[in-house]
C-alpha cells in the first residue's frame, strides 16, 4: 500500500523530537486530549509517555534491564530439593519469572512443566497424581483469576485429603504493579478465598522465608490428614535478582511418621474385634499403599472379618459387597477412615418428609479410626453428620493396621480361632454367591442399545485383565479382579464435576513411569467442564484409555428434577430440560481427535465394543492417549 504523504515514520519522529521528550511528558494529559486520532493507514504517533520511556537518558549506572540470577531461580532450587517431578499450570503473568526459571534455569526437568488449559484441571491433575504416587505435584496458579478457576478443584482435593502444593503468583507492592491488568490480578490476601479449604498457606516476603515456608508447606501437605497448601510467590520476589553475597539455604525436609493409634485404645479395639461374633470392617480411605493393602488383608484374615469398601482384593473370600444386610447382622463395625460414617450406618430417605433409620442393630459397637478429626474447619460442611461411636481413635488407620493385627493375635484363643475358621467358611461362600449374583445381574440388558454399563465393564475387563492395569477414574466392576492398591484409584472428594477427566490424566501420568495401562471410565458431563485436558494428555504423551460412560445427561440431576416433579405432581415429562446433554449429541470421538488424541465412537451397538476397546488398549500400550465414546444406559 502506498503510504500517505502525511504519514510520519516512527524512527524519523523519534529522531526529530527526542530532545524535547521531558517537556512533552509534563504536558501529556492536555496534549493527549487535544491530539487528533491518527488517520487510518498512517503510522501511529507514539505517545509522549512511550517516547520518554524509550529515549530518556537515565544514567547507565542505574538503568538495570537484566537480572542474572532472579529470585525465581532460587525458587526452582527449592522445588528441585523437594523432589517435584511435575508442575502443572495454565500460564499467568504473575508467575512469569518462575515459569521462565523452570523451563530455562531448571531445564524443564524435575519439575517438568505441564501445560494445562484451566487451573481447575491443573489442581485435579495433581490430585490424581497424588492418589497413585503418594506425594504432591506442584501447581502454579495465576493470582486472583487463576485461583478462582482452581477453587473447586482445591475444595475437592481438601475433602479427599490429597496433598497438592500450589504456588500462587501475586503482586503485593502497589508501587511495582503494572497499570491495568496487574491490578485486577492482584490481591492483598490472595489466598483468602480458598483458605477455608486448604490446610495451610503463607505469603513469604523474602527468599529465605520462601524456602522455609515451601519446606514447611510440603511437610504439612504430606502429614495426615493430608491436604492442599498454598504458597504465594510474590512477583517482585520472583523477578528481583538474588544479591551475589546472599547465602541462600533450603531447610532440610523430614516428613513425620504417620500417627499410629494409642496402644491402649488399640488393645481395646482388638479385644472387641476378637470377641465379636459378626464384625465388619469398612475400609473406605484406609489404604493408600501396597503395604497398607497387605496389612489390611492380614488384619481381616487374622480375625476372619469381612471387608467392605475401600481398597481390598476383590477376589479375596473376605471381600464382601457391603450393603444393609452385612451391617444389619454386625455386632461390631470397625470404620477405617470413613469420611461419612453416619451416612454409612444409617439410611436416609429423600421423600417430602425426610426420615432416616439405623442400618445397624441395637447394641452393635462402632469403632472409628481416622485422621479426619485432626483437622476440621467450620464453614464448609465436608465433615458430614456427627456419628456416634463407642471407640474413636484419632490416628492414621493405615499406620495402625499392623499394631491392631498384632494386638488381635495376642488375644486369640483356640476357641476363637475355631470360630474364626467357621466364620471364614461362611463368608467365603457368601462371597462366591455374591459373585454369581453379579454375573447374573450383568446379563440383564446384555445386548441392549444404549450399551449397559455391565456389558461395557465386561468388555473392557476382557481387554485389560492380562495387563498391569490401573483404573484411574470410575468404579471397578465387582467382576473385575482388583489386586493392587493402584488398580482402584478412587474419585473426587467433594463431588465437584470437572474433576475426573483431569484427575485421570494426572493418575495416568503417575502410572506412566511404572509402565501401567491407565484406564478411565469417563462420564460425559464431567468431561465437558474442561475437555482441554485431553489436549494436555496428547501434548505430554500421557498414555490413557478413556472409555466414555456417555449417558448424554447430568444424570444425577435428571433424577433429582424427576423427584421434584413427582413430589409436586406435575410435569413429570420435563426432567430432561436443563439436565440432558442432547440436541445436538456430542461426538466425543471427534472432539478427542480435534484435541490431538485417537478417538473412537460413538458406539451404540455392544457388538462394536470389543474391537474398539482392543484398538484403544493397543494405542494406550504404545504410550498415547485414546478415547472410546460409548453411549450407555443411565447407570
Amino acid at each position, binding site marked *: 500500500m502506498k503510504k500517505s504523504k502525511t504519514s510520519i515514520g516512527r524512527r524519523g519522529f523519534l529522531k526529530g523530537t527526542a530532545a524535547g521528550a521531558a517537556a512533552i511528558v509534563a504536558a501529556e494529559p492536555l496534549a493527549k486530549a487535544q491530539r487528533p486520532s491518527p488517520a487510518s493507514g498512517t503510522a501511529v504517533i507514539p505517545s509522549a509517555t512511550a517516547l520518554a520511556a524509550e529515549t530518556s537518558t537515565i544514567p547507565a549506572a542505574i538503568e538495570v534491564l537484566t537480572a542474572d540470577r532472579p529470585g525465581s531461580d532460587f525458587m526452582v532450587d527449592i522445588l528441585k530439593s523437594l523432589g517435584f517431578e511435575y508442575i502443572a499450570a495454565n500460564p499467568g503473568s504473575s508467575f512469569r519469572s518462575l515459569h521462565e526459571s523452570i523451563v530455562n534455569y531448571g531445564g524443564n526437568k524435575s519439575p517438568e512443566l505441564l501445560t494445562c488449559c484451566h487451573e481447575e484441571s491443573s489442581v485435579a491433575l495433581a490430585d490424581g497424581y497424588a492418589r497413585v504416587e503418594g506425594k504432591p505435584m506442584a501447581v502454579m496458579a495465576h493470582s486472583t483469576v487463576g485461583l478462582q478457576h482452581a477453587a473447586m478443584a482445591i475444595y475437592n482435593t481438601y475433602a479427599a485429603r490429597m496433598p497438592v502444593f500450589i504456588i500462587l503468583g501475586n503482586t503485593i507492592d502497589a508501587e511495582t504493579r503494572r497499570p491495568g491488568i496487574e491490578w485486577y490480578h492482584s490481591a492483598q490476601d490472595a489466598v483468602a478465598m480458598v483458605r477455608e479449604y486448604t490446610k495451610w498457606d503463607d505469603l513469604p516476603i523474602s527468599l529465605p522465608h520462601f524456602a522455609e515456608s515451601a519446606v514447611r508447606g510440603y511437610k504439612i501437605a504430606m502429614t495426615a490428614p493430608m491436604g492442599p497448601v498454598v504458597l504465594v510467590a510474590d512477583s517482585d520476589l520472583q523477578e528481583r535478582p538474588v544479591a551475589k553475597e546472599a547465602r541462600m539455604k533450603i531447610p532440610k525436609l523430614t516428613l513425620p511418621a504417620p500417627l499410629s493409634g494409642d496402644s491402649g485404645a488399640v488393645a481395646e479395639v482388638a479385644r472387641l474385634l476378637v470377641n465379636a461374633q459378626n464384625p465388619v470392617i469398612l475400609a473406605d480411605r484406609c489404604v493408600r499403599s501396597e503395604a497398607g493393602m497387605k496389612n489390611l488383608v492380614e488384619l481381616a484374615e487374622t480375625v476372619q472379618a469381612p471387608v467392605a469398601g475401600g481398597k481390598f482384593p476383590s477376589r479375596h473370600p473376605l471381600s464382601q459387597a457391603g450393603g444393609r444386610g452385612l451391617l444389619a447382622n454386625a455386632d461390631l463395625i470397625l470404620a477405617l477412615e470413613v469420611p461419612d460414617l453416619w451416612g454409612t450406618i444409617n439410611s436416609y430417605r429423600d421423600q417430602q418428609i425426610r426420615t432416616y433409620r439405623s442400618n445397624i442393630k441395637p447394641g452393635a459397637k462402632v469403632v472409628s479410626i481416622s485422621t479426619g478429626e485432626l483437622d476440621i474447619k467450620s464453614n464448609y460442611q465436608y465433615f458430614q453428620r456427627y456419628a456416634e461411636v463407642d471407640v474413636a481413635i484419632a490416628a492414621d488407620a493405615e499406620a495402625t493396621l499392623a499394631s491392631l493385627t498384632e494386638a488381635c493375635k495376642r488375644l486369640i484363643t483356640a476357641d476363637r480361632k475355631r470360630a474364626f475358621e467357621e466364620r471364614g467358611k461362611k463368608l467365603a461362600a457368601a462371597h462366591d454367591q455374591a459373585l*454369581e449374583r453379579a454375573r447374573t445381574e450383568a446379563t*440383564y*440388558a*446384555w445386548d441392549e442399545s444404549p450399551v449397559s454399563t455391565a456389558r461395557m465393564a465386561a468388555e473392557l*475387563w476382557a481387554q485389560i485383565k492380562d495387563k498391569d492395569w490401573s483404573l484411574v477414574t470410575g468404579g471397578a466392576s465387582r467382576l473385575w479382579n482388583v489386586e493392587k492398591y493402584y488398580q482402584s484409584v478412587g474419585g473426587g472428594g467433594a463431588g465437584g464435576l470437572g474433576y475426573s477427566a483431569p484427575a485421570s490424566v494426572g493418575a495416568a501420568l503417575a502410572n506412566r513411569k511404572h509402565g501401567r495401562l491407565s484406564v478411565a471410565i469417563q462420564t460425559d458431563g464431567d468431561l465437558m467442564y474442561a475437555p482441554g485436558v485431553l489436549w494436555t494428555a496428547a501434548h505430554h504423551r500421557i498414555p490413557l484409555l478413556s472409555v466414555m460412560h456417555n449417558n448424554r445427561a447430568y444424570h444425577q440431576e435428571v433424577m433429582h428434577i424427576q423427584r421434584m416433579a413427582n413430589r409436586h405432581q406435575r410435569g413429570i415429562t420435563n426432567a430432561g430440560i436443563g439436565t440432558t446433554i442432547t440436541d445436538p449429541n456430542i461426538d466425543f470421538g471427534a472432539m478427542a481427535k480435534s484435541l490431538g488424541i485417537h478417538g473412537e465412537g460413538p458406539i451404540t451397538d455392544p457388538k462394536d465394543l470389543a474391537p474398539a476397546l482392543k484398538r484403544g488398549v493397543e494405542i494406550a500400550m504404545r504410550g498415547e492417549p485414546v478415547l472410546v465414546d460409548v453411549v450407555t444406559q443411565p447407570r
Partner: protein
Amino acid sequence: MRLFILLATASVLWAQAPGPASAPAGNAQNGKKIFESYGCYQCHGHAGQGGAGARIAPRPIAFAAFTRYVRQPTGEMPPYTAKVVSDQELGDIYAFLQSIPQPPAAKGIPLLN
C-alpha cells in the same frame, strides 16, 4: 405410643390399599414410550434392568404390588400418583415390563465366565 399405633395402622392400610386386582390389558408399545417419557428408565434402565433403582424386568412383581409401590413407595423411589400417571398408563408400563424377554444365561456368555 399413641402416635406409634396410629402410624402402624396407617402402614397396614397402605399395605392393604386397594389397587387393580389384576393387570389391565395394557398396551406394551405405549408402555415402552411412557416408560421413557415419564422417567422410569432413569433409575431402572431402558430395559428395566436396574441401575440407581431396582431391577424390575423381566418378570415384574405382581401388578397389585407394582401399583401399590409406584403410588406409595416405601423406599427411595419418588411417588407416581394418580394425578400424573393413570391406572391405565401403569397397566401399559406393566405390559411393557412383561414383554421384556429373559436375558441369556450367564454361563452362555463367555465374557462373564
